C-alpha cells in the first residue's frame, strides 16, 4: 500500500505500517467472519423464534478480549515511539537546510562548503547518505512539507522554527507536497526533491544553480545581452562572449538568453501560481500583454507597466495594486532576486506581448 521509499525514515515507517495493516486485516476479517457466521447460524427463520440462550455476562470473557488488544496496542505504541525518537533527534554531522514557505511556493537554502548558502526555489537538493536537518518556517499561513518517498512531514508555522531530520537512501526525483491547507493554490504548491548519489555530484549541482555567468558579463556586453530577443541573435552573442578571453570560452556555454533566464526564474520562484501567461485571471494579474501597457490601479490612477513598474512590483508588491485585485496577496522578493535577475524577468515579460 506504499509508494517507493527513499529514506531511513521509510525504513522505520514501512515495517510498522505493514505490521499494523496485517494486524488490522486479521482483526477485521475475524470480526466480520464471526458476525456473518452468527447471522447465518442464528438467523430468525420463523418470526416467533426465540433466542436459545440468554447468557448475558462473563467477566472472564471480558478480560479475555480486553487484554490482548491492550497488549497489542501498547506494542504498537512502543514501536511507533521508538521509530519516531530515532527521527526526531539530531544526529552528528547533519547538513542544515533552511526552508521557507509562503503562499504558494517553497524556498530551500542549501549550504555550500566555503561559500554562501544557495537558494533554490521549489527544488530541494540533497545528497544520499547524509543526515539532513531541515529547519522550516513560513511567511504567512501554516504550510506543511510532505515528502511521501521519505515518509516525512513537518508543519511550517509562521513565527516558529520547526525541525525535521531525514536521510535519503536512494538517488532520484521525488515530489514534495504542501500538506497543510493554505488557500487558493494549495494544490499546486508542489516542489521537487532531487537526491544525488554522492556529495560531490550534489555540490556541483548546487553550485550550478548558484553559477550564473551572465552576471559576470562586462557592462557593455550585459546591455547587449539584455536586449536579445531571438535565439539566432543569442547564438551570435554567445560566440562573441566566448571570444572575450580564455576564461569565457567555457563560461559562455553556460549563458542563456535573458528571456530564458527570466522564464527559469519566474518558474522557480513560483510566480506562476498567481500570474498566468495566457490571460487567465488568477490571484494576481496575468502577464500576457502586460509590458508597455497602461494599467488602472485600485485608487483609479493609471500607471505605465514599464521597467520601473515591474521592478517595484517585485520588490514592493504592495505599493500599487491593480484595480479589481485584492491587496496584500504578494510578498516582497527583496533578497531573493538581485537587479540582474529583475532585468532577466523584464526581458521575459517583454516576450509575452500578444
Amino acid at each position, binding site marked *: 500500500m506504499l509508494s517507493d521509499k527513499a529514506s531511513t525514515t521509510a525504513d522505520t515507517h514501512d515495517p510498522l505500517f505493514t505490521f499494523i495493516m496485517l494486524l488490522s486485516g486479521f482483526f477485521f476479517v475475524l470480526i466480520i467472519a464471526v458476525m456473518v457466521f452468527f447471522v447465518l447460524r442464528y438467523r430468525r427463520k420463523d418470526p416467533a423464534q426465540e433466542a436459545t440462550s440468554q447468557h448475558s455476562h462473563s467477566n472472564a470473557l471480558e478480560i479475555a478480549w480486553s487484554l490482548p488488544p491492550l497488549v497489542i496496542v501498547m506494542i504498537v505504541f512502543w514501536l511507533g515511539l521508538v521509530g519516531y525518537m530515532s527521527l526526531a533527534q539530531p544526529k552528528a554531522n547533519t547538513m542544515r537546510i533552511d526552508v521557507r514557505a509562503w503562499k504558494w511556493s517553497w524556498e530551500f537554502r542549501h549550504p555550500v562548503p566555503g561559500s554562501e548558502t544557495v537558494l533554490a526555489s521549489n527544488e530541494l537538493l540533497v545528497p544520499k547518505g547524509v543526515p539532513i536537518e531541515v529547519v522550516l518556517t513560513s*511567511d504567512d499561513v501554516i504550510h506543511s512539507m510532505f515528502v511521501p518517498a521519505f515518509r516525512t512531514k513537518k508543519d511550517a508555522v509562521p513565527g516558529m*522554527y520547526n525541525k525535521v531530520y531525514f536521510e535519503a537512501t536512494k538517488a532520484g526525483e521525488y515530489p514534495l507536497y504542501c500538506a497543510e491547507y493554505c488557500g487558493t493554490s494549495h494544490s499546486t504548491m508542489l516542489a521537487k526533491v532531487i537526491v544525488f548519489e554522492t556529495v560531490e555530484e550534489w555540490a556541483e549541482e548546487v553550485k550550478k544553480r548558484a553559477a550564473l555567468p551572465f552576471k559576470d558579463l562586462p557592462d557593455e556586453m550585459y546591455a547587449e545581452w539584455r536586449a536579445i530577443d531571438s535565439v539566432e541573435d543569442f547564438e551570435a552573442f554567445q560566440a562573441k562572449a566566448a571570444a572575450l578571453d580564455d576564461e569565457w570560452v567555457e563560461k559562455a556555454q553556460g549563458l542563456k538568453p535573458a528571456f530564458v533566464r527570466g522564464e527559469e526564474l519566474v518558474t522557480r520562484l513560483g510566480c506562476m501560481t498567481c500570474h498566468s501567461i495566457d490571460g487567465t485571471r488568477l490571484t494576481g494579474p496575468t502577464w500576457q500583454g502586460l509590458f508597455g501597457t497602461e494599467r488602472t490601479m485600485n485608487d483609479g490612477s493609471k500607471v505605465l507597466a514599464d521597467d520601473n513598474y515591474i521592478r517595484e512590483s517585485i520588490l514592493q508588491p504592495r505599493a500599487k495594486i491593480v484595480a479589481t485585485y485584492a491587496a*496584500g496577496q504578494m510578498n*516582497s522578493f527583496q*533578497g531573493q532576486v538581485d537587479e540582474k535577475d529583475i532585468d532577466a524577468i523584464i526581458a521575459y515579460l517583454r516576450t509575452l506581448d500578444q
Partner: protein
Amino acid sequence: MSQGPASEGEQHDGHHDSHVAHHFESAGQQTASGKLGMWVFLATEILTFGGLFCAYAVYRKNHPETFEFGHLLLETKWGAINTVILIASSFTMAWAVRTAQLNKKKATTILLALTLLGGLGFMCIKYVEYSHKFHMGTGPGKAWFDITKYQAYYEAHHDKYHDGDEHHDHAEPHLADAEHHDEPVLMLASAVAPPEGPAFRTELTAPAASPPGLAPGDGESSKAVFGWPEHKLPTPAETLKARNFIDIYFAMTSLHGLHVLIGMALIFWVMLRNMAGKITAKTYLPVDLVGLFWHLVDLIWIFLFPLLYLIHT
C-alpha cells in the same frame, strides 16, 4: 425554571402545586433539577473562562516581557475597590436567598437592590478604567491601540509621576518603530537568515531595548491613593511590548463584564418577581439559581484581579 401549562399537570395529578411543572413529580424534584442544571451550567462557565486563563498562562510563559510592563497600565486601586464591591454584593446576594427562604419579602427586595447596586458600582468603575485606557490610546486591537496618542499622553502626564524626565530621549525612536508594527512583520525574517529559536518573535514585538533604569518597581512609587502605591506610566516602547497583555486584559475583563451585566439583569428580574409576590419560601428557587450565578461571577473576578493587577513579573 420551566413551568409547563400547570393545568395539564393537575388534570391527572390532583396534589400538584401550581408552581410545579407538569412533568415533575414533586416540588422537591423540581428544585433539585433546577439546581443540578445550574451547577452543570456553572461548570461550562468555568471551562469557558478556563480557555482564557489557559491563554493567559501560555502568554505568561512565552512572552514574559508583555506582562512586565502591561500591568503598569492598570490601577490597582480600582481593581481592589471592585473586588471589595463584588465580595460585598455576593454577601448581600447570599443573604437575599436566606430571606427569600424565610418569606421576608421586603428584606429580600432590599438585599437584591443592594446587590444590584454593587453590580452597578462595579460596572461604573469598569467604565472609568476602560475609558481611561481608550483615552490613553491603549485600547485593544488595531482600532483602539494608538501609540501616537499614548506618546502624547505619556509626555503630558509622566512628569506627574516622575521627578526627572530622562525617558524623553528614548521616546522618539520608539515611535518610529511603532509604525512598522502593522507591516507583515514576518517579512523581516525573510530578509535575514532565519535566527535560531523563539527569540525571533520577541524581536518582532520589541523593536528597541528598554531604556535603562526602567525595571518596574524601582522605587519611585511615591504617590498613593488610599494607601496604594501609584505605578509609574510605562514608556511608549514598553507599552508597545505590552500589546498582547492589553488584548488579553480586554478579552478577559470584557467577557467577565458581560457576565456581570447578565447577572444584573437576572437579579433585576428576580427582584421584580419578588416585588410581585411570586417569590415565597416554596418558590425561592429562581433567587437561589441567580445567586449561584452571581457567586460564580464574583469568584472569577477573584482570580482575574490578582492575575491581571497584582502579579507583576
